[in-house]
């Protein structure tokens, strides 16, 4: 039925220069526009070798979401360190060998990713507000927030996210690629919601959902939002 053979392909490479993705959306839009269709459904490799040594973790879920949103198909990473490879693999990106770097530079100890709470139990419960500029990650489980998540704040979980107060910031569930993860919130005013890298920004969230109790989940490759 099948035959396995080696093949050579030339793929576009997107070199990542920093991990702050704030302006990336616009930059991608400009590049894609300039490429006039070239990037539509194009497999793209993410090159990590130009990232500064001390740059933090790469927000792959967001990055992959952004790239998909612009019609690219991110297929793998090149360069980078083991921690980054692990994070990339979690998003089902292949780690491609880099021929130029077989003699790799001395590896720094992989920085343990997001600073806040590491957690392995059933989930993480927060009762205080998450303020603009703060970032909370529930590793390996769900995140339950009993207070408001401010605009400019970011909450992430490997599992589900529940917010029992206004959600005004960004919420990313299933950040390691769990497509069954969901976001539940009592009052949706989010700047961005994402499940397993599929995201939607506030501009694309219908007015009928704003201020309502909503759940966000993946159905196939489509992010769905429903009132509860």
């Amino acid at each position, binding site marked *: 039925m099948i035959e396995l053979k080696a093949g050579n392909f030339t793929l576009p490479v997107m070199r990542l220069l920093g991990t702050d993705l704030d302006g990336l959306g616009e930059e991608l839009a400009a590049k894609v526009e300039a490429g006039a269709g070239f990037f539509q459904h194009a497999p793209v490799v993410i090159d990590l070798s130009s990232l500064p040594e001390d740059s933090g973790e790469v927000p792959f879920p967001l990055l992959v979401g952004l790239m998909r949103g612009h019609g690219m198909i991110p297929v793998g990473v090149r360069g980078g360190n083991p921690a980054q490879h692990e994070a990339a693999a979690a998003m089902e990106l292949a780690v491609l060998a880099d021929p130029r770097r077989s003699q790799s530079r001395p590896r720094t100890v992989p920085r343990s990713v997001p600073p806040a709470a590491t957690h392995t139990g059933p989930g993480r419960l927060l009762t*205080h507000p998450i303020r*603009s*500029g*703060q970032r909370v990650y529930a590793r390996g489980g769900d995140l339950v927030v009993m207070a*408001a998540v*401010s605009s*400019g*704040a970011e909450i992430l979980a490997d599992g589900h996210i529940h917010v029992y*107060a206004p959600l*005004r910031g960004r919420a990313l569930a299933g950040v390691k690629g769990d497509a069954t993860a969901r976001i539940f919130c009592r009052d949706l005013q989010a700047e961005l919601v994402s499940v397993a890298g599929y995201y939607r920004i506030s501009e694309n969230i219908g007015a009928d959902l704003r201020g309502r109790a909503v759940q966000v989940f993946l159905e196939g490759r489509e992010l769905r939002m429903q009132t509860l």
Partner: protein
Amino acid sequence: MARIIVVTSGKGGVGKTTTSASIAMGLARRGHRTAVIDFDVGLRNLDLVMGCERRVVYDFVNVINQEANLNQALIRDKREDNLFILPASQTRDKEALTKEGVGRVLDELAQSFDYVVCDSPAGIEHGATMAMYYADDAIVVTNPEVSSVRDSDRMLGILASKSRRAERGDEPIREYLLLSRYSPERVARGEMLSVDDVKDILALDLLGVIPESQSVLSASNAGVPVILDEASDAGRAYADLVGRYLGEDLPHRFLEAQKKGLLSRLFGG
């Protein structure tokens, strides 16, 4: 042991110095030995609002650098024996405030005072982080505008993580919201956020609402903390606020637009 209060904000010009001066004066008048420190190194102006600018010999940085001792640098208020001002230097740069040096001065003040009020510069630069680091209580001054509220939210996040209390895992800094330059008329016209809007966004205890008032400018031009102007709305609002800080249950005033009579409407009263 003194309680250390930082008066802080994300955005500049929202009323921190005005507030620091009035709170310090209010606490002192109620019999608490109080010191107020100007952390705005390079932009001296607490001494002007307190009306002691002509009596400055040594300043905060001199004390940090051990070029003067605290007793030499503290200026006793002429109106209130319980109140002392530690002015900022106009000439040094902000890096002069070291964590170790600030800690030493605050420790020494804490021995003999009940309250130490720290007038912070705006934002999250060095001077501001030094002013908040040792705080027990934080008063976050906010104007009823979206950008000011957003910045306050950010300050609250930083307060929760970048303080001695946070680093030691002690009980967190107590946070209070002060809404300043509030104009009920402009709120009614939809030009400003209302008290409820701001409370809703920041989810914080409201310590007080200070109305926008001409008396603030006149008072600070005269070197008088506005809390001493008992005829003015702003002065009375600050007096209430001090009472609330000390645990009194006082209703918020000056939240509604004044119904103007025909005469005052005609003559713009």
